[in-house]
């Protein structure tokens, strides 16, 4: 460091920071007089939180709800595990006793019936024709050869437009 710099450094060292303005000193001393936050700090350490009765009740209710929730969740888990087992059984075990298998289905035409003439809203004449059928279904038990037969009558109504011109 050259002499000029040393000289300047020396000059700077000789200077002392100015005293604080009186009003600023007073304000800052006031800060130290205020010890509320210290009391608060200590008070926080000693603080005991007393729950009011309603909060106690709320807490008990919340615990009860949580307990019931957990209980049903466990029950649900148990059921779902049982269901899984059952469904597995149903898939794995082959069909055995009392199993009927459909072996035949028939749709037999039985006749036709004239339903007469109809006039639609837009003044078009129709000829009504009713076709009658008999639907039969047959199931057979492979084990004992027994049969189940079901016959269901069915009919279909057709409206055939009549040409007028």
């Amino acid at each position, binding site marked *: *460091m050259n002499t*000029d*710099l040393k000289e*300047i450094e020396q000059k700077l060292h000789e200077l002392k*920071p100015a*005293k*604080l303005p009186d009003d*600023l000193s007073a304000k800052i*001393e006031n800060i130290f007089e205020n010890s509320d936050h*210290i009391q608060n700090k200590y008070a926080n350490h000693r603080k005991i939180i007393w729950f009011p009765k309603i909060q106690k009740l709320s807490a008990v209710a919340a615990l009860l709800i949580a307990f019931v929730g957990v209980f049903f969740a466990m029950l649900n888990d148990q059921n779902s595990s049982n269901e899984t087992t059952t469904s597995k059984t149903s898939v794995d075990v082959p069909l055995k006793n009392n199993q009927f298998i459909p072996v035949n289905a028939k749709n037999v035409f039985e006749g036709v019936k004239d339903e007469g003439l109809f006039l639609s809203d837009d003044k078009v004449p129709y000829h009504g024709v009713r076709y009658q059928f008999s639907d039969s279904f047959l199931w057979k038990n492979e084990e004992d050869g027994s049969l189940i037969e079901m016959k269901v009558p069915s009919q279909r109504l057709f409206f055939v437009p009549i040409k007028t011109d």
Partner: protein
Amino acid sequence: MTEESLAESWKEWFHLNGTRLLLFARGKTKSEADAQDVLQDTILRLWKSYSSPIDGHFDPPPLALVYTALRNAAIDHARRINRRTQREQKSDFIVRDRDQVENWFETSSLEQSEQAQIIKEALQQIPEKFQEVLTLKIWGELTFAEIAENLNIPANTAASRYRYALDALRKILKPNSI
């Protein structure tokens, strides 16, 4: 330690260090009012954080930490001021400089007072990063290592900035010297 004696210890600590802290704050702010605001704000925060006696003893904050707190407070303050100034300019307010001319240094004679004023103005002219290192070193009585930690720079950089600061002051105070 009672609350009264704790307050007394803090007052004593502040009497010892207040002047240098205000000087640093003056260097970091644009006006005397800002410097005083920043100092008050910082002391208040430190008081709240450090005023609980540990094991019944007064435990003052380390000076390096105080300077860091002052520096951060000055930055925050400057941001607030900038926002306020922008608002005021937008609303055509005239911002008045309420500062009086403050002496940064103690003086006992007219000659010394003039010299102190010249040095103050010179300090205000040099780059802020040089000025803060110089202030911390000479009046803050921190080591380069402490300054480096405070400013988050390497110690060598702190030492270089100190030298550049002196050189910059030399150019202002002794423009004819080589």
